[in-house]
């Protein structure tokens, strides 16, 4: 079957019936060069949906890693409920099914005047449209003593891969009776329920193999997403194992002692057998270097197109974007990427741009037979992204509902990763 652009259609309609079946290749229409930087959920989704669109495009995806490892569901691996391999997704489908060129290199510089992206290898890629999806970077130094080197002893495991495996190894090596300290970051950060889901699933692991272990959450905040649900789940599944200390109690997280494996708050020092320090976050480094991020550390965008408000002609999607009231999550990144892809395709083809549909949804697993779900709808008609509807599971839901949500979570992961990489 052929695929026809609307522009080609206009051309055909103005010609004779004999030329009406002229395929794209014969029309000689120049392809728009789309370059997408970052092969995470946002970048991969925008590349795929642009390649699937009716626009005539050549899509290049720049990503240094050979595979993407999902941070979502990685705490199931920590709990021994999912293999590490099941979190890994390749780019072969995007290349083979959609004709996307995958360039395994690092983008080092963007020249918005010449419209080129410089790569670590020295190559320069010209573009007509650029989408930047650099994800998050960590604010090293915001917690005294926590720098990149410290992550080898006190892993953040908040970008999945070797850090996730390191944390799992440390948990396995930990003696029963030890304290696992989890430092939860200030808002905004990637995956608001994530640190608390991780605490739940590490507790599940401890309950089986190290039942005398304790989990201490030192939080940079005074409350967190789904707090009532998590605390209810902890009391039902892991009574007495998890303690959560808000910033108003500790005075906030001030420093770490890497050698001593301890975390210092305003008034105390907490010694850990294993410490998982999730530091404060900002948009990925390239966004900072390219002038896409403002003083907040995140990238302001037009919610109808996800075009940067600071660098016209460059789009930013995913966790790096400052998208109003939208959470930072894989689901939200995927949703933003589709809006961005449709907006770029509409502008290339001159076709109608439909109102964006922006969502975030989440399945959070707290035990192998117990999950909660949430959904947030957004509207962007006023020029700012605002929450239009919010749903979150309730405390006291029956056991069958919670079991069903675990099954749905598994189904969601399969469908979602297929939507992004398949």
């Amino acid at each position, binding site marked *: 079957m052929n*695929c026809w652009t609307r522009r080609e259609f206009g051309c055909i*309609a103005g010609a004779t019936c004999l030329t009406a079946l002229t395929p794209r290749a014969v029309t000689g229409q120049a392809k728009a060069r789309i370059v997408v930087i970052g092969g995470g959920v946002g970048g991969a989704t925008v590349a795929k949906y642009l390649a*699937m669109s009716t626009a005539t495009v050549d899509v290049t995806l720049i990503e240094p890693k050979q595979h993407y490892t999902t941070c979502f569901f990685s705490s199931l691996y920590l709990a021994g409920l999912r293999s590490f391999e099941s979190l890994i997704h390749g780019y072969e489908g995007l290349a*083979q099914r959609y*004709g996307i060129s995958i360039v395994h290199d690092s983008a080092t510089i963007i020249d918005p005047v010449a419209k080129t992206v410089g790569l670590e290898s020295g190559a320069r890629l010209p573009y007509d449209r650029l989408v930047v999806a650099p994800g998050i970077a960590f604010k090293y130094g915001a917690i005294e003593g926590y720098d990149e080197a410290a992550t080898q002893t006190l892993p953040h495991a908040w970008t999945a891969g070797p850090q996730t495996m390191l944390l799992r190894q440390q948990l396995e090596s930990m003696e029963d009776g030890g304290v696992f300290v989890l430092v939860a970051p200030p808002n905004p950060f990637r995956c608001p329920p994530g640190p608390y889901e991780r605490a739940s699933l590490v507790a599940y692991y401890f309950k089986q193999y190290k039942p005398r272990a304790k989990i201490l959450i030192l939080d940079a905040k005074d409350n967190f997403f789904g707090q009532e649900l998590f605390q209810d789940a902890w009391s039902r599944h892991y009574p007495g194992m998890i303690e959560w200390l808000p910033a108003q109690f500790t005075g906030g997280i001030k420093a770490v002692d890497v050698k001593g494996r301890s975390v210092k708050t305003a008034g105390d020092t907490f010694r850990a057998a294993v410490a998982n320090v999730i530091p404060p976050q900002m948009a990925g480094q390239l966004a900072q270097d390219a002038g896409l991020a403002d003083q907040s550390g995140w990238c302001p965008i037009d919610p109808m197109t996800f075009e940067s408000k600071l660098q016209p002609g460059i789009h930013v999607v995913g966790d790096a974007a400052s998208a109003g009231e939208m959470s930072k999550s894989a689901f939200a990144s995927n949703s933003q990427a589709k809006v961005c892809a*449709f907006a770029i395709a509409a502008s290339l083809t001159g076709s109608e741009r439909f109102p964006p549909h922006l969502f975030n949804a989440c399945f959070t697993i707290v035990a192998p037979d117990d999950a909660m779900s949430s*959904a947030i709808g957004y509207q962007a008609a006023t020029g700012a992204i605002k929450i239009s509807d919010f*749903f979150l599971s309730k405390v006291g839901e029956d056991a069958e509902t919670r079991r069903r949500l675990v099954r749905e979570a598994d189904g969601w992961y399969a*469908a979602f990763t297929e939507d992004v990489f398949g």
Partner: protein
Amino acid sequence: MSAKCRCDGNALGARAFIALQICICATPVFLITHESLAADNNRGAQLAATCAACHRLDGRDNGIPSIIGLDEGKLAGALQAFKSGERSIMHTVALSLSSEEIATVVHYLAAQRKETERP
């Protein structure tokens, strides 16, 4: 066909397109009709992209039900029921859709064929 051309790759869209090309040869006034239909097809695909974040669109059901190739009216009814029903992920999704958008997306989804049924 290039690998990326899955765009309007639904059978209905293709049939409609071919039919409309024939019409255009006869009378250019149908161009407007086609432009509108193409836009509708596009919109259906775009709305369905939201569904694809949770529901596989190849007909496989792995914990979350398949929503393709179903009766258009039943699917529309289900979405309307979610819209007026109790709070859930699908309630939030359905609330965001106008009646026109529901009609558009169910028309698109109903026309999709399971992977095993595709030629």
